[in-house]
């Protein structure tokens, strides 16, 4: 065992020396390799962060939402529906929600307007998300003026900024009083955007949803789990699209690695011939070359992963923001909680180190079987 370890150490020493003797070739390969790992790792870390973030946010959301449907479209729901579902066993509480979207042509952005169930601002006042405040240049005490459904301008005083753990969902939020909301969107009293149900036992949510469907045939219940699944699917789909685009880059990298490994210079071939002539076996040369590949792979993997980690968790994933966050114009300052997932690291390792090893194995083998007497000729 000790001899085996010592032999590997000698081979590793030689590999490191050989790499240092040809810095140009190896640095170019390391650079491209690191870039590939960086891109893939960035996408993976960022997508998983978004999914985690969404889960954290939605953990606080209600278990069940009821929306009224008219001709297959979401419509305002009358408050009387609340009475019809209040008697369902297992329902702890229920209330109507008022929320909607508003397109602001001034900044070409969508806002989410919402009446909070508790601690709503006073009439004529609003609390806004930090991204919105940044975009419109608003501070506490300033006025935000928007054009209402009736065509009249509406002005609110900014009473506060929304401090949220996750800016991802609060970035474009405007919280306001119920009467302001109804007047702004011209929604009659007694109508709500949707209804929220709190269910005492989480295992009963499905049963309650079925009962709601029966009690309100024109409505659809939406479970929190379904929203979570949708978020996962949306982010997973986006990750997939980016991966498909990156697949070309991985293939190009494999071809590049093959070219580098098979294009051994005359000097390198001569060196292998010398090693074999002075007593190295084909296996020794092969192991030496594999060490070279391992050092390169691991260095590139580590560098690429660390760079991606910094990119995603400390630079808000500046490169992928537009494609992975979606259509929102008000980009939130997204600072996800750093994490390392073992399975994710293993997957990434497989998708980067395996193509490189596979691409270089044959050229390495063909170099390792150089005839030892070639140096005599």
């Amino acid at each position, binding site marked *: 065992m000790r001899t085996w370890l010592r*032999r590997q150490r000698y081979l590793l020493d030689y590999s490191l020396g050989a790499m240092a*003797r040809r810095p140009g070739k190896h640095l170019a390969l390391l650079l491209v390799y690191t870039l590939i790992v960086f891109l893939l790792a960035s996408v993976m870390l960022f997508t998983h962060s978004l999914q985690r973030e969404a889960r954290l946010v939605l953990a606080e959301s209600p278990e069940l939402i009821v929306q009224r449907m008219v001709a297959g479209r979401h419509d305002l729901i009358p408050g009387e529906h609340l009475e019809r579902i209040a008697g369902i066993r297992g329902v702890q509480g229920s209330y109507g929600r008022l929320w909607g979207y508003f397109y602001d042509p001034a900044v070409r952005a969508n806002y989410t307007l919402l009446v909070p169930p508790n601690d709503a601002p006073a009439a004529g006042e609003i609390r806004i998300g930090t991204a919105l405040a940044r975009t419109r240049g608003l501070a506490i005490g300033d006025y935000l003026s928007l054009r209402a459904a009736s065509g009249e301008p509406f002005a609110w005083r900014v009473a506060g900024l929304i401090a949220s753990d996750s800016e991802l969902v609060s970035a474009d939020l405007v919280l306001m009083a119920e009467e302001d909301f109804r007047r702004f969107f011209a929604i009659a009293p007694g109508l709500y955007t949707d209804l929220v149900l709190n269910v005492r036992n989480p295992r009963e949510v499905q049963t309650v949803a079925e009962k709601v469907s029966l009690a309100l045939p024109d409505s659809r219940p939406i479970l929190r789990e379904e929203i979570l699944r949708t978020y996962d699917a949306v982010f997973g789909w986006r990750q997939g699209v980016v991966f498909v685009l990156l697949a070309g880059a991985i293939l190009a990298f494999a071809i590049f690695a093959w070219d580098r490994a098979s294009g051994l210079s005359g000097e390198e071939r001569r060196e292998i011939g*010398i090693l074999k002539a*002075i007593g*190295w076996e084909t296996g*020794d040369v092969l192991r030496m070359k594999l060490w070279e590949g391992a050092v390169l792979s691991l260095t590139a993997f580590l560098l690429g992963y660390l760079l991606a980690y910094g990119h995603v968790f400390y630079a808000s994933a500046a490169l992928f923001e537009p494609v992975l966050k979606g259509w929102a114009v008000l980009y939130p300052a997204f600072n996800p909680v750093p994490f390392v997932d073992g399975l994710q690291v293993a997957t990434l390792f497989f998708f980067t180190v395996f193509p490189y090893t596979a691409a270089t194995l044959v050229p390495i083998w063909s170099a390792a079987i150089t005839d030892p007497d070639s140096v005599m*000729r």
Partner: protein
Amino acid sequence: MIELEEVRKAFNQGRPNELWAVRGVSLTLPLKGLHVLKGPSGSGKTTLLAMIGCLSRPTAGRIRLDGRLISNLPERFMTEVRRATFGFVFQQFNLIRGLSVLDNVMLPAYPLAPNAGELRRRALALLDRFGIAARAGHKAEWLSGGEAQRAAVCRAMINDPRILIADEPTANLDSQRSQELLAVLGELVAMGKTVLVSSHDPLVFGSAGVSHLVELHDGRLVGAA
């Protein structure tokens, strides 16, 4: 005893450019002394040395070392015999550029994985013995022709082989350096090693220390003394 029995070697066999470099050489050399293969360029000296040193296999015929057939061994066993029995000094020295002289000398021992300190001591002792210890840390490409030749001899001796094979060792040396090399080879013979040299340099085959002189021409043996 090194025994060659009707040894033949062809390159590119079966192709239009087929070349028979060695055409039926039978020879017996004792494992002692300095043996020189003499002949003009293309006479088959280097090819014969490569086959004796287990660097290549004959196309036909047999080679025995102390009675053991070594000409038809699988690659792995051939490498083992080569590593344990032969040391090589090549015409172009073939030191690896960019590596220090000391590293070059230690290189043949790496697959055997000896203790690092012990290997280093052995290599430095050899460099000292052949007068280039001061150059141990220098890169191989910085050495003069004579120094590179001696470094190549040290590398050939690092695994303490019984037989040293030198292919045209004086081809790149002036007369004085050639004389020095012959002195080094004589020293090795005195240490009990067998030295096999190919050369068409009269300085070498005319040297007083030569035990056996084998003459080749067009791949055939034309004389042995």
